[in-house]
């Protein structure tokens, strides 16, 4: 049973097996073209595999949108060190809940993507780093891995071809920061999840300082369809330089929240109205977080745009991780900014001072503001503090905290002013009604 009804406008490539009975099992997978892409890749050179991924226009689904084929190309294949494939299943960007489904309903698609990546760079070992809260997914993934070993897709002599590839799950223990690639690697090595300074990037010095391909779950899951049907086919599903489909996670004040697979470049207003069933209770749209809580917010009149990496960047925001959070007219933007900052202050690993101190002070300032004790000068201070964090940290968490805050202060300044002079939050009553 899916957690939400599918929509007929979806283009179901990665999610095409989600509704099949026993979709987790290797039998279902094999009966629906499973592992055929891997078998095809066995007959391709490393260059050919990477070129196919490059041609697909696939860009990292974790949030940064870096071209996947190019990332794989950075792995020094002549290196004498062992190479690793690392899957980032530490899904924890607020608003994002897609990797859960990809593992829950089709774990073999992920394994096949990992195997193809292994071929492409000459790796013999992979790990799936799964956030600790997703314990049931670790169990699903472990079962799928056991099935793949039993059928010869994993092991010391894969399909009798003399190739070696071993795969294992790895449990996290609760830390947003570990979704950041270098912090994930530190955590994987049994340390605090503090980020590493880059360069060198993981492609050169990743797990155990060895060359490592590190991608998001959805990125790896996109690889089998690319190899099987060709990079050009995948590229054609999306827009220029933004190949394929992606799983958008719709949440917030809409009638039909859910995870939907849509082509890259799908219009955001159509996403809200035709996929999400429109605004709940007939309320007006106020703002949208287009790709997880790290992204600058869009005002209602900025939402008529194509959801791809480049369009969102041009609009001053980011496509991020696909978490589309929709807010209606009764949402207090000060409260939203406060909740987002509380999260980043809690999750800042403390390694870089601008982030550690900045998020904490911003949380205090926003709390004071929401409590009606803010001063006019605080509005400027919130913006300044945020801007001073930008680009001054080892990892993107500092930016992730600053960017939505800057956008809220700049686009919804009137709401901050409405909280001045000890006035109670004008939305408190309304928000209670919504949940009643």
């Amino acid at each position, binding site marked *: 049973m899916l957690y939400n009804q599918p929509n007929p406008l979806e283009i179901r490539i990665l999610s095409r097996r989600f509704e099949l009975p026993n979709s987790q099992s290797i039998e279902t997978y094999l009966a629906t073209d499973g592992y055929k892409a891997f078998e095809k890749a066995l007959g391709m050179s490393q260059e050919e595999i990477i070129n196919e991924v490059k041609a697909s226009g696939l860009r990292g689904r974790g949030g940064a949108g870096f071209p996947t084929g190019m990332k794989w190309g950075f792995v020094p294949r002549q290196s004498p060190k062992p190479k690793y494939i690392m899957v980032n299943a530490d899904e924890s960007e607020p608003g994002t*809940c897609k990797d859960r489904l990809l593992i829950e309903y089709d774990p073999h698609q992920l394994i096949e993507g990992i195997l193809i990546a292994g071929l492409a760079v000459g790796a013999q070992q992979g*790990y799936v780093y799964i956030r600790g809260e997703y314990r049931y997914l670790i169990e699903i993934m472990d079962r799928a891995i056991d099935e793949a070993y039993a059928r010869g897709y994993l092991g010391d002599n894969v399909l009798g071809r003399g190739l070696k590839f071993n795969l294992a799950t790895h449990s996290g223990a609760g830390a947003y920061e570990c979704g950041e690639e270098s912090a994930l690697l530190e955590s994987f090595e049994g340390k605090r999840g503090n980020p590493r300074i880059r360069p060198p990037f993981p492609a050169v010095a990743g797990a155990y300082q060895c060359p490592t391909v590190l991608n998001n779950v959805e990125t790896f899951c996109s690889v089998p369809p690319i190899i099987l049907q060709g990079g050009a086919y995948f590229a054609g599903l999306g827009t220029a330089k933004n190949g394929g489909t992606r799983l958008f996670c719709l949440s917030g004040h809409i009638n039909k929240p859910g995870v939907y697979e849509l082509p890259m470049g799908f219009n955001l207003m159509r996403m809200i109205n035709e996929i999400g069933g429109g605004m709940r209770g007939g309320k007006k749209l106020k703002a949208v977080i287009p790709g997880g809580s790290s992204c600058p917010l869009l005002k209602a009149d900025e939402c008529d745009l194509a959801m791809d990496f480049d369009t969102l960047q041009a609009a001053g925001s980011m496509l991020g991780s696909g978490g589309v959070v929709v807010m209606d007219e009764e949402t207090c933007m000060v409260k939203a900014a406060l909740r987002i900052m509380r999260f980043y202050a*809690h*999750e800042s690993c403390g390694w870089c001072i601008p982030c550690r101190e900045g998020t904490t002070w911003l949380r205090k300032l926003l709390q004071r503001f929401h409590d009606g004790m803010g001063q006019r000068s605080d509005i400027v201070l919130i913006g300044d503090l945020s801007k001073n964090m930008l680009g001054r940290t080892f990892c993107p968490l500092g930016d992730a905290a600053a960017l939505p805050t800057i956008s809220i202060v700049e686009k919804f300044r009137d709401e901050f002013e409405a909280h001045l002079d000890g006035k109670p939050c004008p939305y408190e009553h309304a928000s209670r009604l919504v949940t009643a």
Partner: protein
Amino acid sequence: MTFSPELEARFEKFLAKYPPDRKRSAMIPMLIYAQDEVGSITDELIEEVAKRVGVTPLQVNEVVGFYSMLHKKGMGKYHVQVCTNISCLLVGGAELYDQACHKLGIGHKEVRPDGRISLEEVECIGACSWAPAVQVNYDFYHDVTPEQLDKLLDGLMAGKTPEQIDEVRKVN
């Protein structure tokens, strides 16, 4: 320190996953699974894990302090986690958390006197499209209404296991 045969078998599997000179990688998985059995991260457990992965207890201790799911203080047998992050907040997650505080008479990371139920306000647990969401231990509850939360907490407080509470079902 002795563990159940199941946990010992799991530890053995964990240690075999990583290169022989990289046993430290098994530390965090060992800690979280051991915590489930022991109830909390005790000093004894820290020493045991340190010994098994070949590091000092201090190196384990600094890791324990970093991760939000690792607790030195024991939580209840049923650890109720209510998400109040942005997607849940928009559809009543904060109100659910307040409701849980009142009903259980405890706050964030507190345990009821009988040691059976504890509460935590958690950050995003990855159920944004089916918000508001609650986790009891590792089980997910989606689209939770105030009535459902009442029934879940009433049931737990009356000594039932989550499986015995018919009106509210985990989704995973």
